[in-house]
């Protein structure tokens, strides 16, 4: 082979290779993952609960997103492969007005990945120095003692979001706004109680929307063992067997207790009770 022939072969080979490379399919980018927030679970980081931490369930089966903006940490969980992959925070964008987010190109090359472990109802992984646990909100340490609506909503996303989502009956709210009778309400509830998680955000939204200073609410979180005589607190001597227990007082005496069953409509129940007071 002459040098000229060798050069032309080399040029041909290079050109062929370039064409093949150009025609080869690009590495498939991972499909975007759409996630919606889930307030049944909470995110624990090193034993604390960052107020802005959120847990999302992906529309893609088996995928979940943990987003903690204050710690610049976002992790996409893939249960089938038992892996948690770090995703850049700027790849998480709102998707529509219903609180969904879109995670663009999750699990890109070089993204740090962490092993997952499942311990019964708890999902656990360690991301760098952070020990992260995903658990049911009812399994979190209970809110115990008096608390304001604002403090509760700030600390417990399931209450905050439940309050936001509830749409009280405007006629009943209007009636509550007009109330002039001085009413004291004592509401005992448990953040560990699944039933309270459904009912109490509705009730608190009603009190908030009524915004009537004649309706004074004392909100008290009870521990799981409130019925135990060894657990002192404002719940002692109140004679209730179940939570939530909502007591209506007028002129210093207890008039009645509100029904807090699952289908109850608190604003209508409360407006009816107040209208019955002579």
């Amino acid at each position, binding site marked *: 082979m002459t040098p000229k022939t060798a050069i032309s072969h080399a040029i041909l080979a290079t050109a062929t290779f370039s064409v093949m490379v150009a025609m080869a399919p690009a590495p498939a980018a991972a499909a975007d993952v759409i996630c919606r927030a889930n307030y049944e679970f909470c995110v624990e980081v090193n034993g604390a609960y960052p107020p802005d931490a959120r847990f999302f369930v992906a529309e893609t089966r088996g995928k979940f997103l943990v987003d903690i903006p204050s710690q610049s940490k976002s992790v996409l969980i893939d249960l089938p492969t038992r892996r948690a992959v770090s995703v850049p925070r700027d790849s998480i964008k709102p998707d529509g007005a219903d609180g969904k987010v879109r995670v663009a190109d999750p699990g890109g090359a070089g993204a740090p990945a962490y092993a997952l472990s499942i311990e*019964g109802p708890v999902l656990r992984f360690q991301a760098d120095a952070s020990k992260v646990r995903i658990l049911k909100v009812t399994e979190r340490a209970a809110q115990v003692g008096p608390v304001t609506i604002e403090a509760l909503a700030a600390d417990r996303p399931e209450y905050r979001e439940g309050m936001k989502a509830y749409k009280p009956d405007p006629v009943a709210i209007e009636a509550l706004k007009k109330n002039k009778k001085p009413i004291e309400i004592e509401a005992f509830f448990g953040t560990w109680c699944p039933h309270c998680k459904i009912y109490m955000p509705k009730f608190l939204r009603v009190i908030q929307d009524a915004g009537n200073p004649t309706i004074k609410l004392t909100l008290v979180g009870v521990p799981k063992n409130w019925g135990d005589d060894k657990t002192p607190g404002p719940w002692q001597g109140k004679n209730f067997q179940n939570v939530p227990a909502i007591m209506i007082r007028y002129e210093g005496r207890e008039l009645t207790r509100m029904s807090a069953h699952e289908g109850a409509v608190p604003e209508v129940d409360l407006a009816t009770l107040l209208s019955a007071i002579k």
Partner: protein
Amino acid sequence: MTGTAATGPAIGSVPAGDGSTGRRRALTRLGHAARIALGAVFLAAGALKIVDVAEFARQTASYGLIGPRLAAVIAPGLIALEIALAAALLAGCHVRVAAIVTGLLLAFFIALEGWGIMQGRIESCGCFGAYVQRTPQEVILEDLLFTALAVMVVVFLGAWEPRRHRLAASAVAAATVATLGLAIASPRLPIDPWVTSLAVGRTVEELGLAARLPAEVQAGGLVAILDLADPASKDAAAALNELAATPGLPRVLALTPSTEAEHAAFLWQAYPAFDLLTADRPLLKRLYRRLPLYFLVRSGRVEAIYPGPRPPTADLLSSKAS
């Protein structure tokens, strides 16, 4: 009352020292009234439990003293014992023995409920079946009243026996055997439409689910009720995943009476492709005897009911094709 068995009145008999026959008769009548009342209570308790033996077994196991398998064996036996005692009291067969055993059983139930309260238990005992809900405190009060009836039977009726003793004994034996057979066969008996509130044509409001089911599901959706503690729920979830992933089918949603911890553990293990919501057990319990159970909702009404173990995949796919 003093004296020995040889010289004084027999234990349990009505004292006749004052010679008042009228008083003695009145007390005997009171004893019979207590016997019949106690027998009727135990008959009702046993009969109501037969309707849903599996739920009674679950409630028995929920005290934590025995496991679910042993509870599944003990539950029919306990129902048969209650019916046997009821039959003995009502038929007047060995009344004193029956009343003493009934009293001891009630004392055991009271102790069990007391222990349950100390453990923070608030769930109903299932003493009158799955569809009667009472707090442990109410159960204790009731049982104390029934114990008083048992004491009245022992004290006022003494060694009273009916004239046709053999017939009474035969009735007790027949009732016991029949109850045991019914209790064992109960889960397979087609009695769901009579004992649950789930029926074709019922609205979601009537079922108490209006607040739980999203509007989209109320408009048209397949609702599954799953017991997450049951290993069969994983197979059901796999089949529901297929349905949830098939375009054009109604939205799939599952409700479960399981605990929050069971819900979370199931989610991590089965990662269902459909929404899975926990709901109060008393709310859901009115809808089923056995799980899994599926029902189709259209325009807020139950259109079809499909008892488990698998969802109606073929039905839904064929309705889609047609």
